[in-house]
């Protein structure tokens, strides 16, 4: 009877969220040049200016966390591209899925939801023939997200080439370069991952 009660209590304890994942907003802000009064960080690298808005955090039912962050590429004083990073973390702080949505020069892009990949199955024969490449699920997930993002950008920029641009558009609107935007988003994603703790 006593053992039953102990096992019941232990089971209930196992059902409780075991150490919720946390996010260090200050640390992220510090690595992005600091948050200003409007909760926005302004920074630049590789001659390109960006701004990141303070992420919004919500708890998932399983004790994990959903993080949404807006990253803008700034050109000629205004946002040439506006992108939203949507990241889902498990209760252990592991990145489970990622999605990038954005608007670049009037064109919408969406990578779709990319889930954390499973480790590839390697047979004993393959393993003995050649040691398998080290598999890191988070890195693979990030790579998949940006392969999808680059594909979407190619499509968007390809469509834009067919558009007609009048003189005022040519002078006063700006191009968001694929490489700059991809670099900025990747920079933000890596810093966000460093600020997530279990």
């Amino acid at each position, binding site marked *: 009877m006593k053992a039953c009660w102990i096992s019941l209590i232990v089971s209930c304890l196992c059902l409780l969220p075991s150490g919720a994942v946390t996010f260090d907003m200050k640390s992220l802000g510090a690595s992005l040049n600091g948050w200003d009064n409007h909760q926005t960080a302004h920074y630049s690298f590789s001659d390109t200016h960006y701004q990141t808005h303070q992420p919004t955090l919500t708890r998932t039912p399983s004790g994990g966390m959903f993080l949404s962050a807006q990253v803008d590429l700034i050109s000629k004083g205004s946002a040439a591209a506006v992108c939203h990073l949507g990241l889902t973390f498990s209760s252990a702080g592991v990145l489970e899925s990622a999605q990038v949505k954005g608007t670049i*020069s*009037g064109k919408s892009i969406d990578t*779709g*939801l*990319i*889930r954390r990949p499973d480790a590839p199955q390697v047979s004993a024969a393959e393993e003995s023939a050649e040691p398998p490449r080290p598999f890191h699920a988070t890195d693979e997930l990030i790579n*998949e997200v940006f392969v999808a993002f680059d594909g979407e950008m190619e499509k968007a920029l390809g469509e*834009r080439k*067919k*558009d*007609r*641009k*009048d*003189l*005022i*558009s*040519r002078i*006063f*609107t700006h191009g968001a370069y694929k490489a700059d935007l991809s670099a900025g988003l990747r920079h933000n994603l890596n810093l966000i991952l460093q600020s997530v703790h279990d």
Partner: protein
Amino acid sequence: MKLTKYPLVLPILVLSVGSLAHANEALDVLEGKKKAEDINLPAAPEGSAVSAPEPSYTPPAWSPSPMDSLWAKSVLFQDDANPYIQQLAITGFFDFQAAFGEVNVDRSGSTPKNSVDADGTRTRRARLGARIRAFGNTDIEANAEFAGDSDYSGIERLSARTELNENASLTYGKFRPTFTTEYSTEDEFLLTPDRSMLTNMIAPSQTLGIRYNQKWKDWEYGAGWFSGDRDPNIPGIQGNGFISLNARRTFIESSDETKLRGVWHVDYINNMDGNTSDSITRYNVKGRRSANGNQLVNENPSFRHLFSTGVTLEQDRYSFAADFMYAKGNSDVWGISLTPSYWAIPGTVKIVARYHYADSNDPGALVTTMGTSSDPAFDDSPFYVGDEFHSFYLGANLHLYQDRMLLMSGLEYDILKDETGGGFNADAWIWHTGARLSF
């Protein structure tokens, strides 16, 4: 539960599991776990051959511009759920033209050659109006014209177009009949400073009328009746009027890399009032003398039958319009217009050329003006008469904001022959410069 007791249960279960399996595979594709090309689809049943989709043509869009929000302010009200008025917008069109040149008139008989100054700057068009979408199926347009003299300025348009169903519509009020490619094009979208000489000469004026339009596949037909009265404000019903018949076909040819869109049209007008109609032709030079040779015009040109056919083609940066016109009445006149254009810088600089030829066997049958306008209905002083006309135009349009704000410049060379008349041939080199603004 014994499956043998219910013989249909097993196949239903198998089908359900099978469809669930396909549904699960679809979910895996959406979630990124599998790729679509890795899924094995069941074979299509026999006889379910899928035909290739009809080629469609989407014209290039205009890139977003900082001026978009300013132009959007012309829409004063927009509510698609309102049962009475869904949209109210103000409209405007301002066209300023300048011309610099000289018309050289040949010597004939004892009359020495002379030159007529073609220099001038004019507000070619100045319109303000409104556009209303009402009752979910009716578009009402009203435009007031402030340019020109008292015979030209007034109510340029006051019409409504009601959609009877998805493919049929009725247009009524004071509006312009459909005739030739240039006359059917709204003035703000003309590629050249003005329409060709023959179009301006024979096209009927906007007047009171009613027209039925029907679409069927890639065809569009129109049949209408218009009054023979011409009034700068509200025309009345005068005489028997004229009947207008139109047909138009749109075709799309697609290759691996590009698409060609073409529109072929044919228009016919029967003027039942003959030379008593005030709307065919639109101007009055009767009893006046031409600037080439001081030749007296005893009667205005009048036409009982008008015919035009042509084609417009668009492909990537290129477009081309060709029109043939013929008018038969107290004189017979005919002509062609060929207008190629090319986006040198897509959306910004368009190169435009036009060759126009008009001819008649009757002396003095062709009536034209030269300078800021070739439309005698707008400004008929001075005007010239002849029997053969050639015009060459080459210019460029600089699009500041879409097709709504542009600068245009070009050089025109006109040859007017008067072989069967008094022999007062004329030719002119004219430089055109203009600006257009519309909303």
